[in-house]
């Protein structure tokens, strides 16, 4: 793969295999596992290639076990690839050179780098020392990030006394203290309530705008992806099956749109069959799936043929579409 100087991250034919051994239940299984262990390689990521430019926000989508976290771990240098190449800003991540480590950060769900029994502020100053920041630099940086993350007194309370949302925000603060230019975020909103998720999302968006940092994100919450990532990379069973913008993915996955209608009087389902596929029919409410090329005619006819109180046209939820795709296992 040819490296363009404008590419920050180059992933070329990257693969990772994990060696595993199965154990049968019971004493006999234990003995066999001890004396005659059979191991085999399980492919986690197979032959994946893509490039990422500086400042991009890219979402990695995939079902559980699809390989997206393994991919992220290889890109940040946490694990070694079985084959293929990763280049991040001219560095080979698995070598974990100091200059590379000072440019990146990894946030992994609730895996804490904060010291449990101490307030986050102590851990922040430890991190500042690790990254060679002076006390003054650390103080300015902590204040700046704390303001963006809406953190105040929480930073001087023991970590174990903080709520999950406060802890997660403190973790993010600790991870960003050294001004990394590449952020690897694995499920950064996992377990947070809706409000906390929204705050983390708006912070990441703001951080990207202010600093121009490149953000690579995996999340099970589609809202994270739709709010933050213009570009998505979909992984299925360790292989890449989509790399492009989210809108195009939605269009290619669903050539139809949802038409939700609120009727003045209840109607039988037979009356709607000619307009499109009925997704839902409940008393006076009906939801139809209509192909995009027929949308104008169908809406016009519905307004003429029925006594309608309200009508709404929308794309089917992207998470529903992708979920269906993963279940079907279709590869474009």
């Amino acid at each position: 793969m040819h490296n363009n100087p404008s590419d920050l991250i180059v992933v070329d034919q990257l693969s990772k295999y994990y060696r595993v051994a199965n154990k049968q239940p019971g004493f006999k299984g234990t003995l066999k596992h001890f004396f005659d262990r059979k191991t085999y390689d399980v492919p986690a990521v197979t032959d994946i290639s893509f490039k990422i430019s500086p400042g991009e926000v890219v979402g990695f989508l995939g079902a559980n076990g699809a390989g997206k976290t393994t991919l992220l771990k290889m890109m940040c240098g946490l694990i070694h690839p079985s084959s293929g190449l990763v280049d991040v800003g001219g560095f080979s991540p698995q070598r974990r050179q100091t200059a590379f480590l000072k440019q990146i950060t990894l946030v992994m769900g609730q895996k804490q780098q904060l010291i449990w029994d101490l307030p986050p502020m102590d851990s922040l100053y430890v991190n500042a020392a690790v990254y060679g920041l002076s006390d003054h630099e650390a103080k300015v940086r902590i204040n700046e990030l704390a303001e963006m993350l809406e953190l105040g007194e929480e930073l001087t309370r023991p970590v174990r006394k903080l709520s999950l949302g406060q802890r997660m925000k403190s973790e993010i603060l600790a991870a960003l203290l050294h001004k990394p230019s590449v952020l690897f975020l694995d499920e950064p909103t996992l377990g947070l309530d809706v409000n906390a998720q929204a705050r983390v999302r708006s912070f990441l968006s703001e951080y990207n705008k202010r600093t121009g940092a490149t953000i690579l994100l995996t999340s099970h919450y589609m809202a994270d992806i739709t709010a933050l990532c213009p570009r998505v990379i979909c992984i299925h069973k360790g292989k890449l099956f989509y790399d492009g913008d989210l809108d195009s993915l939605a269009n290619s996955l669903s050539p139809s749109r949802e038409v939700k209608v609120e009727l003045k009087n209840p109607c039988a389902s037979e009356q709607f069959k000619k307009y499109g596929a009925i997704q839902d029919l409940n008393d006076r409410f009906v939801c139809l799936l209509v192909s995009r090329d027929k949308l104008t005619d169908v809406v016009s006819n519905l307004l003429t043929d029925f006594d309608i109180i309200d009508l709404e046209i929308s794309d089917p939820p992207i998470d529903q579409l992708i979920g269906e795709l993963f279940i079907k296992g279709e590869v474009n």
Partner: protein
Amino acid sequence: MLEYRIEIALWALSGVLPFIMFSLWSQNDVGNSFGLNDIGLARYFLSAFLVRQFSVVWVVFSFEEDSLSGRLSPYLLQPLHPLLRYVAAHLAEQATRLPFAIAIAITFFILNPSSFWLPSLPQLFLAYLSTHFAFTIAFLLQSLVAALCFWTEKSSALERLIFVPYLFLSGLLVPLSAFPSNVLKLAMLTPFPYLINFPAKILSGMPVDIFNGFLAQILWISILVPSVKILWKLGVKRYTAMGA
């Protein structure tokens, strides 16, 4: 936070094994067969206690927990070797132990006034230096076992392979002079006598071959440092970031 303060005090008290051994040996009046009278025995075991307070290592357990829980992952991605983070934690704990160790030493002298002694400044300096070397050797030995976490995932079980010979050959249970000469010769070929016996003998003022003792400590450190580096380098390639 009261429970944490109590925990620190209990933690400092947990290293009292040398006092138990002192009580055992002095009551059975076997000190003479070690070439030590009661006062010599008391000074030796108090010194062994103090040396142990500042050379005890638990990196294998912390490392295993961090490795299995996924906490090691962010540490591996920081520009500081994870083992240095554990060194810092050990040194911080040694500083915390210091006032408790002094309090226990004072109590010991109150209960055994005849055993009171003040080491000379050169003795103190050499004991301090050899205790730091002892800590370094113990830390490196456990780091070697900890690095096996990259292969076995439960390397704390393997730590027993070090702990049992450490217990018997370090001088924690009995001064090594009590051993038959052929066993002693074999013991001196291992790193264990240099972890307690050697620094404790310097501190208590017992006769000891200082030059060869320091030479052996430096030799063991120079063998263990590259061994840990090589094993770590090989192991980290196998790291799968489990639990993360």
